[in-house]
């Protein structure tokens, strides 16, 4: 479904992503691992259209979406949950969710229905319905951002570090939720530093190091590899 | 010959040529035009020193020009004229009558002093807050000029100012100003400031005290504005506070933005090119009015064209016409090739 070919992303003179290839299939869960600064988030932002790649191609369902604007990418079926966990802080939870469905705003009833079913999956959001998003706890905000992304009814969900800064118990809960989302039939590309968790959940995984793909394989293969640790520590040679 | 020398020649030679041309042709209008150009060049270079190096837009610049102009005008005015031009002047100042050159220097220093005092706390602001405060500062300076009638004659025109600015004086000042601006840009402070503009965090990390750096540029910039204002005062010999307001700000800013704020070459180029276009249009406006083509007089055409040029330049070349490289590195001089290649860039 998603194919990335020889993607290069530069910040001024610095190349953060130096020509990577990766793919995500229908209803597949793919993890993208790597140490800080390996270029994972940048890759995700480029796919979501938030930053413009320097070169390379991004194909979604065979259509070239390279350099597409972020808002067009959402309409194409790609939703992004950024690492910065950007809830609209002064908007209520309900308003946040409604905006998640912005591209479907003309079908208000369908939006309400979608919101209702997401509430069942994220019951805590129902309790917080009319509270400003900024007043939620970290774990609740993470759930809100994921639910908001789901409101767009994407076919590919990009998740950037959903476990960042959360207590272990909450991390477990978030991963359960991700698993359940996946069972609804969407594909997920997950960026994580928490390698153990991410590898357990994933069908396949890529490991990035210093802007390149250092290793790839099924979740179990990568988890079993003896090189994993050294790649993380940047000694991949 | 190194690139600094080439740049210095390129930014000063046009002024020298202009003076020679004006002397040879000896046309009163041309001389006046050349003098105005030199004064504008000092003002634009002053703005370039701050805005160009720090990357922060400043609207208050023209206010400091006003300070320089009023200061020098008042302290050089003959005593017999003072009682007429400034009837409300404080008695202690009525006897003061300095030589115009001394007056101009003091005008520049006073502008720099005022800037040094009011601007220090403002220098830690960046982006929108910095622009808003500089705009507010212009408004404050303007309000004071309009209402401090003891010194400025209020909103009315102040007349009777000693005529002292010759083309040679203005040109000499412009040449010195150009060299000074380039020297500042290449000085330690200038280089650090430009580093700050590109990356505030990194520059702070290497120990650059950002507000202090900006402050130095600001004070020097205000000094330029003060000198420019004083020269202008002794050239035009009568003016009102409205001369130091948004319209003048727009012209000076326009010259800098079109030429290229980040380089001294750009500032100089902007002054010459905009003045040329401006005067051409002004002449056209006059011709149209003289020919009585329209029922009413044509005004504002010049500003409209300047605004359009600014918009187009900013859309097509956001950094101005001379964006990054000074003349010295811009031109590929045959005798410099060796140096360039040996620097390995």
């Amino acid at each position, binding site marked *: 479904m998603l194919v990335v070919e020889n993607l290069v992303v530069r910040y001024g003179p610095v190349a953060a992503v130096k020509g990577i290839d990766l793919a995500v299939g229908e209803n597949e869960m793919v993890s993208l691992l790597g140490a800080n600064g390996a270029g994972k988030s940048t890759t995700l932002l480029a796919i979501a259209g938030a930053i413009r790649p320097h070169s390379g191609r991004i194909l979604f369902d065979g259509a070239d979406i390279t350099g597409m604007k972020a808002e067009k990418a959402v309409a194409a079926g790609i939703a992004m949950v950024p690492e910065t966990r950007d809830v609209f802080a002064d908007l209520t939870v309900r308003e946040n969710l409604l905006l998640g469905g912005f591209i479907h705003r003309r079908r208000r009833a369908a939006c309400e229905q979608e919101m209702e079913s997401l509430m069942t999956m994220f019951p805590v959001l129902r309790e917080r319905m009319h509270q400003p998003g900024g007043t939620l706890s970290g774990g609740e905000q993470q759930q809100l951002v994921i639910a908001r992304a789901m409101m767009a009814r994407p076919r590919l969900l990009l998740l950037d570090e959903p476990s960042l800064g959360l207590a272990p118990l909450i991390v477990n809960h978030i991963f359960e939720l991700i698993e359940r989302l996946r069972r609804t039939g969407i594909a997920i590309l997950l960026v994580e530093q928490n390698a153990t968790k991410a590898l357990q959940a994933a069908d396949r995984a890529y490991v990035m190091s210093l802007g390149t793909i250092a290793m790839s394989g099924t979740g179990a293969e990568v988890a079993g590899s003896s090189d994993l640790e050294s790649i993380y520590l940047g000694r991949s040679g | 010959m190194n690139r600094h020398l080439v740049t210095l020649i390129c930014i000063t030679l046009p002024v020298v040529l202009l003076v020679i041309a004006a002397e040879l042709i000896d046309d009163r209008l041309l001389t006046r035009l050349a003098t105005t150009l030199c004064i504008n060049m000092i003002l634009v270079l002053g703005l370039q020193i701050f805005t160009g190096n720090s990357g922060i837009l400043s609207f208050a610049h023209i206010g400091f020009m006003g300070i320089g102009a009023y200061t020098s005008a008042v302290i050089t005015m003959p005593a017999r004229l003072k009682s007429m031009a400034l009837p409300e002047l404080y008695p202690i100042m009525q006897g003061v009558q300095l030589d115009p050159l001394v007056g101009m220097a003091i005008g520049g220093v006073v502008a720099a002093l005022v800037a040094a005092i009011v601007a220090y706390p403002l220098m830690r602001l960046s982006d929108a807050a910095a622009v808003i405060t500089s705009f507010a500062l212009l*408004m404050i300076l303007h*309000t004071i000029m309009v209402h401090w009638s003891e010194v400025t004659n209020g909103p009315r025109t102040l007349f009777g100012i000693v005529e002292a600015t010759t083309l040679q004086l203005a040109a000499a000042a412009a040449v010195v100003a150009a060299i000074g601006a380039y020297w500042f840009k290449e000085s330690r402070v200038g280089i650090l400031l430009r580093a700050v503009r590109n990356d505030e965090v990194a520059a702070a990390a290497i120990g650059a005290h950002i507000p202090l750096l900006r402050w130095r540029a600001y004070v020097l910039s205000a000094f330029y504005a003060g000198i420019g204002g004083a020269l202008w005062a002794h050239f035009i010999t009568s003016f009102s506070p409205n001369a130091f307001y948004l319209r003048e700000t*727009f012209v000076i800013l326009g010259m800098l933005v079109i030429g290229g704020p980040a380089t001294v070459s750009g500032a100089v180029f902007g002054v010459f090119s905009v003045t040329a276009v401006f005067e051409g249009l002004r002449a056209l406006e006059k011709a149209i009015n003289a020919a009585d083509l329209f029922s009413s007089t044509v005004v504002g055409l010049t500003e409209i064209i300047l605004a359009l040029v600014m918009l187009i330049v900013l859309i097509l070349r956001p950094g101005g016409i001379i964006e990054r490289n000074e003349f010295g590195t811009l031109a590929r001089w045959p005798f410099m090739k060796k140096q360039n290649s040996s620097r390995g860039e």
Partner: protein
Amino acid sequence: MDVGTILQFTLDVLNLGSLYALMALGLVVIYGILKLVNFAYGELVMVAGYTLYLLNGSPLPWLIMALVAVCMAVIGGITTDLVAFRPVRANSLTAMLITSFAFSTLLQNAALLFISPRARNVPLPEIFTQSVTMLGVIIPVRNLITIASAFILLGAFTLVMKRTVLGMALRAAASNFTMARMVGIPANFIITVAFAISGLFAGVVAMLWLGRIGAVVPGIGLEPLLVAFIACVIGGMRSLVGAVVGGYLLALIDVSFNYALPPDLLSFRDAFTFTMVIVILLLRPSGLIKGPDTGKRT
């Protein structure tokens, strides 16, 4: 102080504050999203003013003329976006500031060139010159109209911002523009809408402002711009509520100065208010009312 004076004072503050609040909102709607001071904002007031002047003598009823004038301000706002901002938005903030300044000069001089440097009277309905007497205080009806229009417009605006998806999208864009795009809110569209709203406020302000001064000149936009500017800084540049509060507060300060200060100090009033602007920006950069938290964690 007798009841009459208090009534007079209150109405003065409310009248001026209503105008100021509308002016400030029009400016802050743009600032919230683009972080940009639109220097061409005052010229939207001018556009509406000249439209009304050009419609002078037409057989239309005044309200229709006013409506057309407001629409022209809205169109002017959208044009500002298309001409001065969209082409340079990818560049620096400074570039946008300069283009807005250039566009402002462009419009002003176009009015100079094509209409006249002199003041032009605009048509006004009878009611703007009438007045009523209450508790011994003569109250011009136009002041009451100003207050009422402001309340209606502010109420309607609040409803739109709170209840409609478009309003939410505007607030979201002001809170975190990048994220707003990532949920599918188109950047160009939302910015154009913000400019249209800004134009709407400018248009209404123009009608009420002209009701007070009766004539339009090319430089008419400067004062509304400056007032909006100060009110926004006082109230908080990033908050819509702040802009309204700032507007009324500035009116309170201005009117109090008018009542209390001796005339020779009064002429320095603007210097005082602008000094206040600088002090507020230094000590409390977010203004009295803090804007939306960006919600960013990193």
